[in-house]
């Protein structure tokens, strides 16, 4: 396979790291964030 140019390579890695950071963000915020949303949705018993 033809080697990726260093420019493309850098671009790929940057996008990948951004996406990974986003996934981690979703993971770590899932707990408090969804607990909060769930309260707003308003269960009869109050959440």
């Amino acid at each position, binding site marked *: 396979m033809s080697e990726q140019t260093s420019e493309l390579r850098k671009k790929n890695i940057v996008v990948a790291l951004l996406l990974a950071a986003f996934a981690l963000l979703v993971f770590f915020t*899932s707990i408090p964030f969804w607990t909060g949303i769930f309260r707003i949705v308003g269960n009869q018993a109050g959440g």
Partner: protein
Amino acid sequence: MSTTTLTHDDAHHHETPTGWRRWLYSTNHKDIGTLYLLFALTMLFLGGASAMVIRAELFMPGIQLVDPDLYNNLVTNHALIMIFGAVMPAAAGLANWMIPMMIGAPDMALPRMNNLSFWILPAAATMLILSFVVPFFPGGGTQINTGWTLYPPLSIQVGMSMDFLIFAIHLLGASSILASINIIVTLLNMRAPGMKLMQMPMFCWTWLVTAFLLILVVPVLAGGVTMLLFDRHFGTSFFDAAGGGDPVLFQHLFWFFGHPEVYILLLPSIGVLSHVIPTFSRKPLFGYNSMVGAMLAVATIGMVVWAHHQYTVGMSLGAVTYFMIGTIIISIPVGLMIFNFIATMWRGAMTFETPMLFAIAIILMFTFGGLSGVMLAVVPADMQYHDSMFVVAHFHYVLMPGAVFGLFAGVFYWLPKWTGHMYDERLGKIFFWTNIVGFNITFFPQHFLGLAGMPRRIIDYNVMFTEFNVLSSFGAMIFGFSHLLLLYIVISTIRGGQKAKARAWEGADGLEWELDSPPTFHTWEVAPTIK
């Protein structure tokens, strides 16, 4: 994870590796695609075997074959193996094989991460299978008897097998997130010069949306099961009402993942259909733009309607009304997709090879499943349907045509490209008919069972439910064993057969058909020019 790609090493790429090294160290998208597909095929048979035991047990009233805990265990592992082991890896396999070839890229953007995301899977599958078998060893604790939804407090009661399962889910999630990142980066950065996003083949579009959905929702599932793990072992009480927690919170977290997951399973197959139907209708896909728009709409609305899986937990009137209307609204973009497929067939010159037969069956049966989905969305009626066999029938009518048959269509469609051989068309058609007939005999009667009052996930039932269960189990045997024919067709096509042309199908269009069948080990080393 992605730091592994930082070490630079270009010696690898120019030799053609052989033996086990070719597979274990592979960074070639075609080989990794093959690995994914073979893995998925293996898991299809494992998950299918548990389904066959379930149907055999339900063949007659009474408890004949397995004890209730083993039955619940099988119900759980059938779902998890099929979803995480069979359908998702199979779709990832198609993506690995086809996306670089379709967009004129030499390989995936991050080949070594690609290797990692596949090789996590066998480890995860081992953990998953262990979670179902450890209870049979001395001291292994109780079996997982919760169903794939893992609702606490029942999942808190389960023994150590639940911990295996939680870690298996973490691993599977890590694997799909890595694969998704790779696919997104490939689609964004590696397209042949001149190919705009709105010129991408539809399969690429569906995977772009799927991959985004995956990195949005899989971490939430990971968060949910992590909380479950903490509740089980570290004294927290996220889901324990006695400790101030809330058992329903887990359901929200689970279905926030679980509902988009349906679209994750569905969209790649929609992508396959968007290639199969134009090919065999000999005219271009009807409504490319509206297809992309519909898909984005499905993904967006699909993210915010999760609670229709839990109408019966006692939400406020306002909440259920919102979720009901949101869910019904989804029929608009989905209807548009179906419409576009039918309009592609309309005034075409159709021929009926196996992939096309599957595509037509998908349109018909997926419409059926979608309409029973609209019925389920209606809250008052769902108070009856919920957790009954009607739901089982509904989601099999959505997921089998929507996901699995789409993958079958893709496999038959691209098998000539991958192997360089045409499969035996006569056998393909026999497989199609036994498969479809078996499927309908299995799941159609389950609608009646549900309406008449049979709950899902029960091992034993009253004699009033006998007739339809007998029929359903009878169909399941046809359906289950028909997959042996699939296995035979795949193996014999790999081993030989009529040589396939580069453009294996008369009406096929796209960059992948400009490559040889089978393609050389490295393709598009020089990017093609886009007209």
